[in-house]
C-alpha cells in the first residue's frame, strides 16, 4: 500500500536522524550548546505542528497556544519535583491536563469565529498564565526550580509520536472533516459533519501536544517562570505556522527549524537581534506571502507518497 510505504520511509528517516545525532552527542562531537539547540528545535517543532492542526488544518485562528504550553510545563514539573514521579509519566500527565484545559477553553470559545476567537484564546492563555503567577505552590512570580531531565532521546520520541499522530489524523476521514470546516463551515455542516465536535477535537489534540512540549520545555531549563508563557510566546508559535504555510505540516516543521536556528545564532548580537529577526520575517512575507511551502508538503516534490496533506 502507498500509505504503508510512506510510513516506513518516515520511520527510516527518523531513525537515521535520531541515530546520527545521538552518536554525535555521545561521542562528544556536539557540545552541550548544540545539543541544547537541537532539543529546543525539537520542542519548537512539536509546538508548531500542534498549532498547525488547529490553524492550518481546522482553520481556527487560535493565538493562545502558550497557555497550553504553560499547563504542560507546570503540571509536569509538579509531578517530577513535588510528587517525585518518573519523567515520562510527568510528560504524559502534562499533555493530558493540557488537553483537558483545551477542552474547557475550546468548548465555549470555538463558537466564535475569526478575530473574536483569536481574542478569546489570547485571553484564556493570559488567564492560565496569571493563575500560575498567583499560585505559591508553584513558586508564583519567583518561578519554580526544575531539574534538567530533557534529553535528545525524550525530545525525539515525543517529536516522532506527535508528527505521526497528527499525520495519521489528517490523512483520515476525521482530518478531511477538519479541513472541510476550514474550507467552508456551512457546507461542512450541510454534509453531515458535526463541525463543533471536530473543532473541539482538533483544539484538544493540539493542546495535548502543546502540553507534551511543555513538559520537555520546563525540564530543559533549571527554572520556569510565568513570564516565559506570555502572549509573545504564543506569537512565536503562530509565526512558525504562518511562515511555513497555512495547511502545510512540513512547512511548519521547516520554519520551526529555520526560525529557531536564526534566533539562536542571533543571540551573539543581542542589540540587533529582534531587529534582524523581524527583518527575516518581513522579507519572507513579502516574497512568499503564502508561506514557505504554501499548502504543499515536502513529499509533493518527490511525487512518491502523499503525506499529511493540508491542502489537497
Amino acid at each position, binding site marked *: 500500500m502507498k500509505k504503508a510505504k510512506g510510513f516506513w520511509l518516515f520511520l527510516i528517516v527518523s531513525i537515521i536522524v535520531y541515530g546520527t545525532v545521538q552518536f554525535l552527542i555521545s561521542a562528544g562531537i556536539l557540545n552541550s550548546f548544540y545539543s541544547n539547540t537541537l532539543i529546543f528545535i525539537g520542542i519548537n517543532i512539536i509546538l508548531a505542528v500542534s498549532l498547525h492542526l488547529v490553524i492550518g488544518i481546522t482553520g481556527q485562528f487560535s493565538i493562545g497556544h502558550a497557555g497550553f504550553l504553560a499547563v504542560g510545563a507546570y503540571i509536569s514539573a509538579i509531578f517530577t519535583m513535588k510528587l517525585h514521579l518518573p519523567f515520562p509519566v510527568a510528560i504524559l500527565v502534562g499533555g493530558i491536563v493540557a488537553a483537558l484545559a483545551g477542552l474547557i477553553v475550546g468548548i465555549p470559545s470555538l463558537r466564535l469565529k475569526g478575530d473574536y476567537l483569536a481574542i478569546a484564546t489570547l485571553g484564556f492563555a493570559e488567564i492560565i498564565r496569571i493563575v500560575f503567577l498567583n499560585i505559591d505552590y508553584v513558586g508564583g512570580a519567583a518561578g519554580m526550580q526544575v531539574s534538567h531531565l530533557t534529553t535528545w532521546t525524550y525530545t525525539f520520541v515525543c517529536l516522532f509520536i506527535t508528527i505521526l499522530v497528527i499525520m*495519521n489524523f489528517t490523512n483520515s*476521514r476525521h482530518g478531511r472533516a477538519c*479541513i*472541510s470546516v476550514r*474550507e467552508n463551515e456551512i457546507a*461542512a455542516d*450541510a454534509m*453531515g459533519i458535526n463541525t463543533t465536535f471536530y473543532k473541539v477535537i482538533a483544539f484538544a489534540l493540539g493542546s495535548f501536544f502543546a502540553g507534551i512540549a511543555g513538559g520537555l520545555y520546563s525540564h530543559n531549563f533549571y527554572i520556569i517562570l510565568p513570564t516565559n508563557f506570555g502572549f509573545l510566546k504564543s506569537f512565536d508559535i503562530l509565526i512558525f505556522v504562518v511562515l511555513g504555510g497555512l495547511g502545510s505540516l512540513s512547512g511548519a516543521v521547516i520554519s520551526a527549524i529555520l526560525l529557531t536556528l536564526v534566533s539562536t545564532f542571533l543571540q551573539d548580537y543581542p542589540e540587533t537581534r529582534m531587529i534582524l529577526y523581524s527583518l527575516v520575517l518581513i522579507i519572507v512575507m513579502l516574497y512568499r506571502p503564502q508561506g514557505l511551502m504554501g499548502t504543499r508538503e515536502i513529499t509533493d516534490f518527490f511525487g512518491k507518497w502523499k503525506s499529511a496533506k493540508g491542502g*489537497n
Partner: protein
Amino acid sequence: MGKTPLLQVQAAGIQFGGLKAVSGFSMEIHQGELVGLIGPNGAGKTTSFNLLTGVYVPTEGEILLEGKRLNGLPPYKVTRLGISRTFQNIRLFNELSVLDNVKVAYHSLAKHSIISSILRLPSHFSGEKEMEEKSLEFLKIFQLDKFKDEKAKNLPYGQQRRLEIARALAAGPKLLLLDEPAAGMNPQETHDLMELIAFIRKQFNLTILLIEHDMNLVMGICERIYVLDHGQLIAKGTPEEIRNHPKVIEAYLGEEVTIDHA
C-alpha cells in the same frame, strides 16, 4: 394519497426581528416526487430551504420528515436524517480534491473511529477503502472521475455545479434540495442538467425539491410547483395550473391592466 408524505411542512415561518421572511409556509412532498419551488427575487425561497435544513430554526410551525420533527435540529443532524442540499452560490471545499469533496459527504456513513485512524488499525484501512470506492462511483455517475485529483476550485463552473450535486448525493439523502442548480449555465448545460436530474432521480429513487429561475427547466421536469411571493405561499399545482394562475402572473409581471386584446 393515503401514505404519510416524506416531507411535511405545516405553517412554518421565520421572523428576523420585525421582518417576517417566510410565514405560513405549508407543503407536502411524497416519496419519488420532483417538486419545484419558484418565486420572484426575495420571495423567501432560499430562506425556506434554510428552514428545512436546520440552518434557521423556524419561529412558527412544524417541519416533519417521515413523521419525525426536525425543528431545532442542527444542520448536520438533519442531513443524517436524510435531507441534503446544494447551494445557490456554490460552496465547495475549494482546496480539497474533487474526490475528497465527495468523501467528506460520505463521512457520516463511515464508521472508523479517531483512535483507529491514529493507530492505523485495520478498521481504518477498510473504512477508508470503502469511502474511496463509493466516492469514485459517484464521480463516475457524474462523469467527474477524470478530474478526481484536481482541486475543486480549478473545475469549470458547470462541473462545479455537478460536483456539488454529486457531493449532496454522497451524503445519502432521501430528499435532495437543489438551490438554483442551473444558475449561470448556458442552454446546453441546462439541458444536460435536466437529463442528469431525471437520471439520478430514477437511479437513486430520490425525491427532489428544487428552486429555479429557469422556467423551461421547472416547467419541463417538475410534477408539482409551489410559488412563493413576499414570504407567502401564493399558489401550488401542476405546471399547467401554475402557468395560468392569476396570482402567479401578477407576482411575476405585475397587476393585470384592463386593456385586453384591443
